[in-house]
């Protein structure tokens, strides 16, 4: 009897895994422990893929964990009178449980390619809206200024305070001065490492105004945790006005560099 009780106890412990596992995921969103708000155009395709995989793996998780519980419960030695079943395998079953997951995984692989290509491969034909340069432990920003070209005398320099227009494509040219960083905008579903020696294009379209975090997501040294920036999305008119204001501030505090100096610095 004691042995049978032990079997029941251990089986139920293993049943707790799928029960509590599903419960954790079900409760978490209610406490805001969930995907942060998404304000980007492409983010919906990432989030829906996340939910799709969550549903798919959730089903497999529950089915396999419940089977494990059920076998522990049913085939407990304390309950069995006869011998265990002498069976060495099943060719049919092996074929079935190879082909079905293979087809599912292959479908998943092909299904997501488009979303990936949208975010990382189909770069809009435009010149950079802003250059973002990672440096221990800050985000250095450079706007092209009135002439729309980076690397000219009227460039606007800022730190950590990124502003971008909404409802239009923006192209960020991402660089690093020193070590690896990663440009992570949780609310825009964007992440891209900044690599010394590389210029990496990052593009997206925000659909909603607001102020959000810029997080460094690649270890960049002891101050990694504080490499924080803010991004403000605003309508085009407000964005242009902000640019003008910042440009005036920059002109007031420092003489505009000679064009020749800037060219030499490039």
């Amino acid at each position, binding site marked *: 009897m004691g042995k049978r009780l032990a*079997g029941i106890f*251990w089986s139920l412990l*293993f049943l707790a*895994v799928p029960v509590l*596992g599903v419960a954790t995921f079900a409760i978490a969103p209610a406490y805001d*422990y*969930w995907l*942060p708000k998404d304000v980007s155009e492409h983010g919906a395709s*990432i989030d829906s*893929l996340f939910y799709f*995989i*969550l549903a798919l793996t959730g089903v497999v998780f529950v089915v*396999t*964990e419940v089977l*494990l519980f059920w*076998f*522990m419960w049913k*085939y*407990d*030695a304390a309950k069995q009178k006869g*011998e*265990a*079943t*002498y*069976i060495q*395998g*099943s060719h049919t*079953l*092996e074929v079935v449980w*190879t082909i079905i997951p293979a087809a599912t*995984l*292959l479908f998943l*692989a092909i299904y*997501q390619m488009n*979303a*990936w*290509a949208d975010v990382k*491969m189909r770069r809009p034909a435009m010149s950079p809206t802003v250059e973002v340069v990672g440096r*221990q432990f800050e985000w250095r920003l450079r706007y092209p200024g009135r002439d729309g070209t980076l690397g000219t005398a009227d460039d606007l320099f800022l730190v950590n305070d990124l502003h971008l227009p909404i409802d239009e494509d923006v192209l960020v040219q991402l660089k690093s001065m*020193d070590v*690896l960083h*990663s440009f992570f905008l949780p609310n825009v*579903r964007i*992440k891209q490492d900044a*690599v*010394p020696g590389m210029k*990496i294009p990052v593009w997206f379209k925000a659909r909603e105004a607001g102020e*959000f*975090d810029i*997080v460094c997501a*690649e*270890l*960049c*040294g*002891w*101050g*990694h*945790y*504080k490499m*924080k920036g803010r991004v403000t999305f605003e309508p085009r008119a407000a964005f242009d006005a902000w640019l003008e204001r910042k440009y005036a501030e920059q002109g007031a505090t420092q003489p505009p560099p000679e064009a020749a100096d800037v060219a030499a610095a490039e």
Partner: protein
Amino acid sequence: MTPPPVTATPAVEHGTVVGHAHGHAPKAGLSHFLSTYVFSKDHKVIGLQFLFSTLLWFLIGGLLALAVRWQVAWPWSDVPVIGKLFAQEGGQMSPEFYTMLFTMHASVMIFLVIIPILAGAFGNFLIPLMIGADDMAFPTLNMLSYWFMWPAFFFFGASFFVEGGAASGGWTSYPTLSTNPASSPASGMGQTMWLLGLTMVGVSSMLGSVNYMTTIILMRAPGMTMFRLPMTIWAMFITAILQAFALPVLTAAGFMQLSDRMLGTGFFSPEGNVVNNAIAGAGGGQPLLWQHLFWFYSHPAVYIMILPAMGMVSDILTVFARKPLFGYRPMVYSIAGIAGLGFIVWGHHMFMSGMNPALGITFMVSTMMIALPSAVKTFNWLGTLWGGKIQFTTSMLFALSFVSMFIIGGLSGIFMAATPVDIFIHDTYFIVAHFHYVLFAGTAMGVWAAIYFWFPKMFGRTMNEFWGKVHFFLTFIFLNGTFFTMHILGAVGFPRRLADAYHYETFHHLQPMNAFMTYCAIGMVATQVIFAANFIYSMFWGPLAGRNPWNANTLEWTAPSPPGHGNFDYQPIVHRGPYEYSVPGVEKDHLMQTDPPNAAAAAAAAAH
């Protein structure tokens, strides 16, 4: 290399103490002690040396993890007890110190615990015993493979005390943080020692792997065909092949990084790279090159860190389900499939790295496909339990939890493999959850299953079952409390490796869950006191086990417990595969690999 002659008479008396040489009277004195217990060439002693060393480092790695958890849950608060040892102000942890902690936690756990405990401890102890050999093919290399770990222990251990502290560039040691001493206080001596330690671990692994391959190919007992090998041996064999092919790349990359740091080369630094206003180095290199080389080893290493556990768990499940392994050959092929595909998936660590996104698609497809053999293995484990007669021993509970937890770790991997989803969850706690489910909830639980299972063979005594189950229960509860919640943090995008993330608007509300996880982590480490006490007590005072306490089939259970030098008191001859449990018409419910076929036939005839 030729197999020893087949003799019917015992070559060694039963119960011979480990290390006594064939036919020689025990020699007294220090030199005998040294050659028997310290510089031993006996695979069992070497296996136990690996086991004791790695368990000690497991403790250190666990304590490092607790310190990491403390900072994540309560940033900048005074660290209790040990805070004064490294106190800067009061007992508060500095961000440099925190960065070093997680770097060394991962480095210690991966290079000084998981890899050597699987291949070094269990590979050494089990391979000759399970294939019916008297020792390894190259006993001296084997001894050296253990003693090359000591320089690694020294470099990793001593690096905590050098100026700037131990390595702080993450266990992945990405340039240019790791190559440029100006980039971080610990990127000086600490990082150099880390690289030297890594190289020594590599030498040790390489010495082990050539030995394992040779031994398994050439020294199997008569009748032990490849397809009569237990899954443990198949897993060790394929792991050894993985090691041998992947490791040279890491060693070369390590030397390149050393040379960048010490000789002024620029393999991994681009032109004009200025760190912290220091003078730029030679340049002309590429930080991504290191990532490619590093992951070309370190992704196969992920399988080096799980395949042996899979093999051992497969064997333990059959013993305590009293059933043949379901789908033996598919199990072998899926291990081989994992190993083969394991060489072409490394790029999935680099989806966000700046590598060509088209290449990302290729790696995404191969990564999706590597989930397949893992799925096949899981289904076969479930098939093994189906229709069994399950005995809930401590070892079996750990093996069952391996299956249960591996399902979670396997499925969560699919999220990262999906490149668009990876954009959001890359370098967040989702990946931390994933690899802890594979490596702790998977491998470490598998290792405990193996320790409880083979302890009688190692020491001739069994561990206490009651306290073993208490150990299992608490570890199981606390590990899920610690690691399952990490998935939820990952869904918020909570980044790993941040000393304090709560000043971000997105993450400021996550502290209570992190505190809960830290309480669970403290419980998990504290629980191991039960294990340590049980282990040490049972070594000396546990009940005597006899040769075959679990009624298992494989060859190690025909040898005395513990086996003497030379392992077997008679030459084992193998007549069948390792999983003949509950064969119909046979009186006892297991047929050992050495049971003569006529005995089986006679038993069958008698039953009629």
